């Protein structure tokens, strides 16, 4: 079966992001030499200078924040057979989407001050708000194993399906002490698993970087917050970091 599949040409692109997910990919390439043998990388600014527009799989990191991004993203979509959103910014708007619902001109002045007029900026959107996306690798940053699993699935001609259950599942399997029992907050009960509950494992409450599960019970989480001495505002603030765009979408 496999021998009939030609080496897949893959490419990486970035929009508004910190490029941390591409660094994570570069990391994965160092520890998975078989990955490098299975694919041919034709475009990856982080690690090489050559460029090509002939690719099968495009991994896009970053959110769409400028009108000019849209045209570039559409070209990538045209060129690629499979488009993958790489990381939280591309998947759900990421931290950039904190500006969701705010006055954009005001945001621009706040960030760039007097030089605001020289910088184009708009609301931050996940890339599937602009073009159809075939697969997602969530997280800030992405999980290396998930990246590797996704590439394998795509090479097999499959679109991997994301887990649709909360981080708590993985956290409990790791036998972590629930952070709520030690006076901390955590968005684990509403956030999509797949990270192996890495933050709670190290004592840090989940911030929701992998996005909401399909049916989050936010009302119940509000009660959990208030019982544990945190108000609704704290929850909303916490959900702003990564979940602004998804929250706005589910409300509209």
């Amino acid at each position: 079966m496999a021998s009939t599949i030609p080496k897949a040409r893959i490419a990486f692109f970035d929009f508004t992001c910190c490029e941390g997910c591409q660094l994570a990919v570069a990391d994965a390439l160092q520890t998975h030499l078989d990955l490098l043998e299975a694919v041919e990388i034709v475009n990856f600014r982080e690690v090489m200078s050559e460029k090509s527009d002939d690719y099968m799989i495009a991994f896009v990191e970053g959110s769409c924040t400028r009108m000019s991004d849209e045209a570039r993203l559409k070209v990538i979509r045209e060129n690629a057979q499979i488009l993958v959103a790489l990381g939280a910014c591309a998947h759900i708007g990421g931290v950039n989407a904190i500006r969701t619902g705010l006055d954009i001109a005001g945001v621009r002045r706040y960030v760039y001050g007097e030089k605001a007029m020289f910088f184009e900026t708009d609301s931050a959107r996940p890339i599937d708000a602009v073009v159809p996306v075939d697969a997602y690798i969530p997280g800030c940053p992405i999980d290396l194993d998930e990246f590797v699993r996704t590439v394998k699935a795509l090479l097999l001609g499959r679109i991997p399906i994301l887990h649709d259950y909360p981080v708590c599942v993985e956290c409990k399997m790791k036998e972590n002490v629930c952070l709520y029992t030690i006076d901390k907050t955590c968005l684990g009960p509403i956030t999509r698993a797949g990270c192996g509950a890495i933050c709670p494992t190290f004592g840090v409450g989940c911030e929701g970087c992998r996005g909401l599960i399909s049916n989050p019970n936010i009302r119940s989480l509000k009660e959990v917050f208030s019982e544990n001495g945190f108000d609704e505002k704290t929850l909303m603030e916490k959900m702003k970091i990564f979940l602004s765009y998804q929250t706005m979408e589910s409300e509209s």
Partner: protein
Amino acid sequence: MTKTMKEALHSPSIYMPIPAWITNIRPMTKLEKLFTIELPNGMSLNHDPGQFVEVSVFGVGEAPISISSSPSRSDGSFELCVRRVGGLTNALHSLEIGSTIGIRGPFGRGFPIHRFHGKDMLFVPGGLGLAPLRSLIGQVLDERHNFGRIIILYGARHPSEQLFKDELAEWEARDDVELHLTVDRPDDDWKGNVGVITILFPKVQLHARNTVAVTVGPPVMYRFVLAELLAKGIPEGNIWLSLERRMKCGVGKCGHCQIHHIYTCQEGPSFSYAEIKHLKEAL
């Protein structure tokens, strides 16, 4: 004697399939293909109509698929009619003749065909439901003398979605089979009935007490078809159907196919209506 799958299950692991080969692929509709599968060393599947197998595509996973061919026509191989709806079935559709897959089974309880002897048989498949029912219909036709009338009411959404068209034509041509077809949405060439499957019921007169009805189709269809069958006066114990569940392990362990205390993969997927009418999550 050939080795049967039952013996093969005495393998070191109940979760380990045996290798099998795709020896023929027949496209049926846009979404469905009929695969002919051969087991190694002339092994016979030895299945009952209504049973299913777990099919593996290595690297993708495993899924339950009901057996489409009748035991009486198995001849060292069997057939699976597969709709392309997800990970595993997409992968199956991309395979070619000669590809290796894995098979475990047959699993579950099929239709108790011996209990149907002497009865008039009313088959009511809807859509893909014809795939598992074809296994039983074939067996019944091959021992035609054991049964009374044979009536088949088949509903498909669109003429292009009808399965096993050549066999439908064969059944149509037989004077000992009463076949009624309908489609929800006709095309320009369609001259037959139009409407959901229940419109076919007024067309048949039954001797209800002597009729066994077997229906297989999507969950939404059952509610309406069951109402018709009961209205006709067919006894609840003579109405049989097949329940679809996500039978992940096939061996009554993984829990996915559980309806109340019943493991569909063990006690089903074939049930009489009398058996499941009190199980609230069944339909």
